[in-house]
């Protein structure tokens, strides 16, 4: 091979990815491109998982429950030592915002691809963050700056009454919608405090709560930041994340259809102010609520990679994961990053093993058929494939499907086309919701808020007569063709070894591999 220019030395020789699923695969892809060797960690549920098989080397870290494996700091750091890794990328979730873990990684002489431990500690306390951000002159959602202590009787103190109803009870250590309760009337407060406190204690080991006014209707808009160790900060535009269920995102797009040039300017300025309240050298996100009048309010800041980072990558052309790793190694952000101007429109939809017709409840099972779309402007970040059993211990995210085009209308058309090409068998997914969404008039017009799923989808449309009769036709034809195949078999099929029997999962996987092999030739 002839090379005109020598490749720059990789930021690290070997990196351990302390995560699983699609995000572990995503980080490993960036490492491959940077010339970094990859180490996966896996629990007993993930021996055959995609991320385990893709890494250069894989280390077992414990049994299936996350608390004993992916959340076990000591096991993860021991694995990094065994494998000779120089750095640890935490992905999102699990240990990514755990200050004690970040500190332990540094004490072990390894590099944590993330902010300093002190930053994680200070941002982990949402109340302290609210105080710091308000002091920096950034608008916050009106509400308490101190923990909520229940008053006598219905629990409503003068401070709570001054915030007003409807309001939200939130966990100071919270995130991901956990420990959060909507309170419409004063007499609902006591029950909300009890429920949210229990949930927060169970999820975060801290039951501290606070109270803020409910902004509704509201849009959830966040600004992507990238910082280095030399004081440079890139502001990489916003993402619209208002399509949510259970306060968790399902669909994201960049730019936001609700953000005008002047709103964008003030969001960027306030995101810089928020970033100035903490030290970080990493990818970070400042989340805001946007009300119907275009006013914005600080929600929270995350100094880690977000699930939805890909939409920003598509409009900026940057590899945010690669930059996380490069700035962790001490590299400077380049002028092309600092002066980046996002281009075109990107939309991401998350494919979950969840039943949107039953409150988006997670479903168990195995993925059978697995066809992901391809073609111009389409990107798929997946953590599973045909034959993958779904580990019930973890998040039911199967894949993220992203599209990019010149404008929003073209991006929507591309998304419709890509969804038509997508087939997932074996389990119900939210694909039926996503296919409804891309034709929903409010979404198509860009006029939607965080109430979309609850108000417009509800449980989804009833199964139509045309769908019933088409499904009946397909099932009838399938049975008839199976019977015809059996009848035409001239001799009985030989007995097959157990592991190749249909339905064991191995057959499906073997088929998929054979197909991939054929395609790769």
């Amino acid at each position, binding site marked *: 091979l002839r090379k005109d220019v020598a490749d720059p030395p990789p930021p690290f020789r070997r990196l351990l990815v302390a995560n699983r699923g699609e995000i572990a695969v995503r980080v490993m892809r960036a490492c491959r491109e940077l010339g970094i060797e990859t180490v996966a960690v896996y629990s007993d549920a993930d021996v055959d998982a995609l991320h385990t098989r893709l890494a250069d080397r894989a280390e077992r870290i414990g049994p299936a*429950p996350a608390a004993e494996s992916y959340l076990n700091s000591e096991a993860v750091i021991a694995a990094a030592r065994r494998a000779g890794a120089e750095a640890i990328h935490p992905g999102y979730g699990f240990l990514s915002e755990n200050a004690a873990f970040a500190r332990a990684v540094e004490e072990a002489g390894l590099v944590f691809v993330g902010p300093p431990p002190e930053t994680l500690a200070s941002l982990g306390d949402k109340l302290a963050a609210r105080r710091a951000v308000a002091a920096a002159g950034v608008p916050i959602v009106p509400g308490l700056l101190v923990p909520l202590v229940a008053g006598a009787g219905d629990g409503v103190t003068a401070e709570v009454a001054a915030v007003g109803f409807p309001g939200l009870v939130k966990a100071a250590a919270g995130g991901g*919608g*956990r420990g959060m309760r909507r309170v419409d009337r004063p007499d609902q407060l006591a029950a909300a405090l009890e429920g949210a406190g229990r*949930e927060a204690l169970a*999820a975060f080991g801290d039951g501290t709560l606070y109270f803020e006014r409910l902004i509704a209707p509201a849009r959830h808009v966040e600004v992507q930041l990238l910082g280095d160790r030399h004081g440079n900060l890139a502001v990489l535009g916003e993402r619209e994340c208002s399509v949510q269920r*259970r306060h968790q995102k399902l669909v994201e797009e960049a730019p936001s259809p609700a953000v005008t040039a002047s709103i964008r300017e003030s969001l960027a300025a306030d995101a810089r102010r928020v970033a100035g309240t903490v030290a970080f050298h990493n990818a970070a996100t400042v989340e805001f609520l946007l009300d119907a009048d275009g006013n914005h309010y600080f929600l929270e800041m995350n100094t880690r990679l977000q699930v939805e980072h890909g939409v920003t990558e598509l409009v900026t052309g940057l590899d945010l994961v690669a930059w996380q790793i490069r700035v962790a190694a001490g590299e400077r952000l380049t002028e092309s990053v600092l002066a980046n101007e996002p281009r075109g429109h990107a939309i991401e939809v998350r494919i979950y093993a969840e039943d949107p*017709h039953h*409150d988006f*409840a*997670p*479903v*168990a*099972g195995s993925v*059978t*058929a697995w*066809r992901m779309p391809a073609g111009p402007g389409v990107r798929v970040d997946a953590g599973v494939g045909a034959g993958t059993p779904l580990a*019930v*211990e973890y998040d*039911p995210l199967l894949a993220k499907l992203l599209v990019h085009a010149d404008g929003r209308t073209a991006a929507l058309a591309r998304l419709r086309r890509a*969804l*038509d*090409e*997508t*087939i*997932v*068998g*074996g*389990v*119900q*997914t*939210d*694909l*039926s*919701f*996503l*296919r409804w969404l891309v034709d929903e008039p409010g979404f198509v017009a860009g006029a939607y808020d965080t109430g979309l799923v609850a108000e417009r989808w509800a449980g989804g449309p009833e*199964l139509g007569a*045309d*769908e*019933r*009769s*088409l*499904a*009946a*036709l*397909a*099932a*009838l*034809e*399938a*049975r*008839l*063709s*199976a019977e015809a195949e059996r009848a035409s078999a001239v001799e009985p099929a030989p007995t097959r070894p157990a592991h190749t029997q249909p339905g064991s999962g191995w057959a499906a996987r073997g*088929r998929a591999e054979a197909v991939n092999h054929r395609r790769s030739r």
Partner: protein
Amino acid sequence: MSDLELAVDGAPVVAATGWTLSWIERSDGIARVTDGSRSEVCLVEGAGSDWVVTLRGRRIPVTVRSWRERVLADAESAARQAGGPVEIRAALPGLVVGVAVEDGAEVGEGAVLLTIEAMKMQNEVRAPRAGRVSSISVAAGQTVVAGASLLRIE
């Protein structure tokens, strides 16, 4: 053309007329249905009388049965209804946060038997019919997989 009866969610249904099906990948169950102008790709999984058709992202269970298969199945379910023991299973994977009954307890139809937390939601498991609780095989704090046996009602 055939004596097969079709049902979706237990309700009889007639196969779409004017539409035809052709296989895209027979081994994976991926097919195209078309009426000559419009077409849709769907996924057909199953065997015998039980099929699931995934159409526009939605899994639609379809029963395809001969008259004889239907009579046999109906007789079987009638026997179950007649008061035989009912196995209560977890519909979702999750954490058992509370068991509200004890072995031997008499419960009415709809009584809360236990609570399972899955994806941050507390789901109450209720008695499908009145009877006596037996064979409780889980305790609070235990994680269960979907389909795991929880208890029986006799």
